[in-house]
């Protein structure tokens, strides 16, 4: 029973990593044809991607969206996390539902709804609308990351600070804020990754300047090629490295916070 379940778990994890492993393998295979047997090792597909000016421009656009989204989502997520998991508030249940809504509503429906609103109010589609729209759907995740750090903070510390004569604000600044700092950093990284990977909403509300995900989507739709493998691998490993960094920061928080 136990051996069988171990085997099952291994199989499931293999399934989860199979597609990523495959594109990684064929991104360094020296052949245009993606098939066994392997024809030798090459980095030329990576060189091809790096030399592509159109993708480079898209990457810069992605960065100029992801940085502000990560900041906005972390600020708003920090406020939301404090309200929902730390300080008492009125209407907590309704607030929680409101926060979860962007995660649960199909993205395409949210996208067309925002498209109508921008259209009706005469707001021109631009990178600003992309930033606003992405912040909405990243917010549930950034709130969750920050709240997961906040709930481990001992409330006794606040009472101790109050007993020592600290006002609410200075107790926050000198006790709570340092303890939640790691949560804020982790949230920033997670928000950055989610923003850069987002496609459906971005495609609907972006104007002339198109982020990498929108450019890549049209490439993916039409052709398979080893250089697209290389691009996908770079995106995946860039994201995974950032998420690993965020997880490390969050873990450090749980050690010092405990």
């Amino acid at each position: 029973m136990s051996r069988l379940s171990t085997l099952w778990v291994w199989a499931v994890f293999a399934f989860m990593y199979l597609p990523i492993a495959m594109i990684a393998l064929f991104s360094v295979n020296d052949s245009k044809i993606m098939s066994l047997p392997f024809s030798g090792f090459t980095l030329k597909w990576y060189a091809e991607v790096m030399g592509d000016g159109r993708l480079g421009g898209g990457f810069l656009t992605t960065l100029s969206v992801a940085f502000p989204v990560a900041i906005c989502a972390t600020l708003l997520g920090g406020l939301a996390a404090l309200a929902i998991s730390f300080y008492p508030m009125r209407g907590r249940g309704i607030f929680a539902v409101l926060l979860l809504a962007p995660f649960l509503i199909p993205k395409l429906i949210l996208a067309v709804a925002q498209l109508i609103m921008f259209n009706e109010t005469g707001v021109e589609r631009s990178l600003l609308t992309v930033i606003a729209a992405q912040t909405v759907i990243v917010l549930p995740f950034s709130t969750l990351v920050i709240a997961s750090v906040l709930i481990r903070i001992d409330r006794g510390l606040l009472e101790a600070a109050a007993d020592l004569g600290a006002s609410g604000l200075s107790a926050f600044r000198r006790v709570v804020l340092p303890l939640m700092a790691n949560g804020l950093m982790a949230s920033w990284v997670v928000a950055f990754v989610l923003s850069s990977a987002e496609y459906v909403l971005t495609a609907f509300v972006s104007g002339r300047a198109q982020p990498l995900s929108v450019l890549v989507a049209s490439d993916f739709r039409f052709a398979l090629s080893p250089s697209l493998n290389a691009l996908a691998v770079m995106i995946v490993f860039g994201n995974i490295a950032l998420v690993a960094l965020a997880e490390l920061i969050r873990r450090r928080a749980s050690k010092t916070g405990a």
Partner: protein
Amino acid sequence: MSLRVGTLLAAPVTAFLLALCVAPLLILFAYSFFRVDFVAISYDPSFANYAKIAGSATYRGLILKAFGSGALVVAITAVIGYPVAWFLAKRAGAMKSALLTLLLVPLYSGDLVRVFAWRVLLGAEGVINRSLIWAGVTDAPIQGLLFSPLATHIALTYNYLPFMVIGLWLAFESLDDAWLEAAADLGARSPSRFARVTLPLTFPGLVAGGLMVFVMVVGDYLTPQLLGGASGITVISAINDLFGTAFDWPLGSAIAWTMLAILMAFFAVGAMLIRRSSLVGGS
């Protein structure tokens, strides 16, 4: 501490979400009662769009198909996920947090890249077909692999399995092993232990994980679109078309709100089930 601090902190977030999530959905709702006159929107409210949806076999079929896909993927992920969640909670020991992280990492690769990877694997020119031909198993590529409901459902299972596992894992974490030992001592065999002890006690996790998987499958646009081929037409892609080439925003809005209303009903039922079963589990 007074209730004011939290309420004050929540205020900017509430304002932001009201402006960019609730307001657009309300405008979408209003649009669902308008109609298109040639190329302009006629702001003359009626139920015509909803009547059209109810009367159209195509739209009714697409909505049913979406919920069918959702139910199927929930069932598959539950069967795959139960042993994994149990293992993570009860057997993983020191490896637990590493395994949980490993489970979630593929989610961060982005839905576009994941769909692309499945195309590379399943396509007529893809890894599996080319390799089968090379190995001499078949002469011509197996066409049904990509651009089929099979491809769509493999990728949907892949995309949303982690959410099911997380829901079940949380339920297993709070499941006391003593219940299972007691059942075994009383002579229950393992299928009956699962059906009469494990399943009822982990039911809230199954409902929570199932709801997440269900909404995400129903709302998925990219996966059926890029992997399903002709079968990739879904109710969500129909909304997309009505907002794009077909230019009938009001009808698109009405379909979108029909879907939202049904999903909300599912959530209400799900929340009720979770509340009721956690009351039973707690007593």
